[in-house]
């Protein structure tokens, strides 16, 4: 059996939760004690990356061979004078290198995780840039996806601007939000102002994407050119994370009651799963609180391990961690109560 390590980034440090069988879990940490830990990822050569942030000291990127000993990346993402780097929201591996999505919204690319991390000018200085507006979580580029069949095609989600796609390896980027309900309408640029919270790719068909937006769940069958509302069975339109099982293609989300409340509907915690490409959804609640469960899940705080059956994991803003070793059919809770959870990454060793 492969070992699974959950890297849990919180408001006050990171924690490792390890298991050999995905049922018994052991907590280690904190790492980066006192730092906000905002993202984690793994480079194609197997090294681990983690992003920290501090109200006082700003963001930093760190690298590790073993998830335990970490070194700071000397030549990490930085805008230089004129635009402020507030936080690293995602570290995404592609076949050509790594992307870091940041706030203020932008992307940085590095062929090697030690850098240099160079700004992706085609997105960061997009013609619509002056009209970009932040959402409640700030103006952040929080997700990058690569077409596994075409390394020139990538998608980037920016809150509260929308999804952008490049078809030329990151040189030029184009808004892809047609059919999605607008959140902040701009006077001139009608193709931005879409508050994407989460974005996921169908692992078997890269033309199919799913997005959890501020104002609903949407699916695209044409690589993001157009989107259709796709919420049958969901108890609410609002939510943050969305992930897919690379084996079965199942889609997972955690709906919340509206942008005003941002709580599980009726205090019943549930992950929702779709096994038909987001056309319909069903709740997965065995082992989750069904009364008095008011814990929300932030956009980076859900992941899958890619094993079969798929392990699904999420952490809440109340500091609880929930693990499923059977594709979400049942949930267990490791014995820990952590600070507010910002991100979870499941690494298989």
């Amino acid at each position, binding site marked *: 059996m492969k070992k699974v390590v959950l890297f849990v980034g919180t408001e006050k440090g990171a924690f490792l939760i390890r298991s050999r069988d995905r049922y018994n879990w052991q907590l280690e940490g904190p790492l980066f004690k006192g730092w906000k830990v905002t993202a984690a990822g793994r480079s194609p050569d197997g090294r681990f990356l983690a992003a920290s942030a501090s109200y006082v000291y*700003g963001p930093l990127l760190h690298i590790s061979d073993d998830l335990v000993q970490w070194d700071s990346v000397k030549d990490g993402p930085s805008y230089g004078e004129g635009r402020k780097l507030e936080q690293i929201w995602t570290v995404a591996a592609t076949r050509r290198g790594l992307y870091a999505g940041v706030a203020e919204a932008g992307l940085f690319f590095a062929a090697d995780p030690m850098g240099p991390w160079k700004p992706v000018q085609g997105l960061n200085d997009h013609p619509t840039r002056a009209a970009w507006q932040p959402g409640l979580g700030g103006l952040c580029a929080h997700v990058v996806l690569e077409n596994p069949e075409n390394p020139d095609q990538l998608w980037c989600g920016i809150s509260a601007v929308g999804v952008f796609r490049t078809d030329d390896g990151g040189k030029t980027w184009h808004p892809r939000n047609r059919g999605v309900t607008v959140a902040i309408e701009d006077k001139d640029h009608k193709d931005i102002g879409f508050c994407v919270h989460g974005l996921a790719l169908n692992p078997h068909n890269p033309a199919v994407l799913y997005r959890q937006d501020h104002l609903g769940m949407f699916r695209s069958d044409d690589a993001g050119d157009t989107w259709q509302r796709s919420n049958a069975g969901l108890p609410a339109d609002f939510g943050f994370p969305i992930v897919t099982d690379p084996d079965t293609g199942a889609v997972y989300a955690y709906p919340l009651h509206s942008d005003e409340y941002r709580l599980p509907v009726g205090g019943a915690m549930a992950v929702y799963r779709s096994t038909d490409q987001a056309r319909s959804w069903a709740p997965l609640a065995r082992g989750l609180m069904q009364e008095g469960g008011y814990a929300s899940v932030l956009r980076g705080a859900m992941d899958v391990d890619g094993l079969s059956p798929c392990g699904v994991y999420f952490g809440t803003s109340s500091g609880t961690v929930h693990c499923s070793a059977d594709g979400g059919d049942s949930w267990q809770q490791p014995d820990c109560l952590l600070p507010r959870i910002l991100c979870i990454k499941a690494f298989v060793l």
Partner: protein
Amino acid sequence: MAHVTIHLPSILASLVGERVVPVDAASVAGALEALTARHPALGQALFDESGALREHVLCFHNKENTHWHAQGLGQKLLAGDKLTILQAVTGG
């Protein structure tokens, strides 16, 4: 050049593995430059995009806040001087 020590808050010390960093420098700015040369991660942690100390980072030269000194980070150092990095306590 004066031999001085720079004292780090624990949250930064945990990043670089030492709490007190000895450096040789002629000025406060030179000492901070030597510090970030030795620990490059601190360059991004202490200074903002314009190259100034971050808004909530304080640097004391002995018992004086360098923000208040007419020469700021240009202040000259004497052997045995102590620089202390602190984070400004803001809010509750």
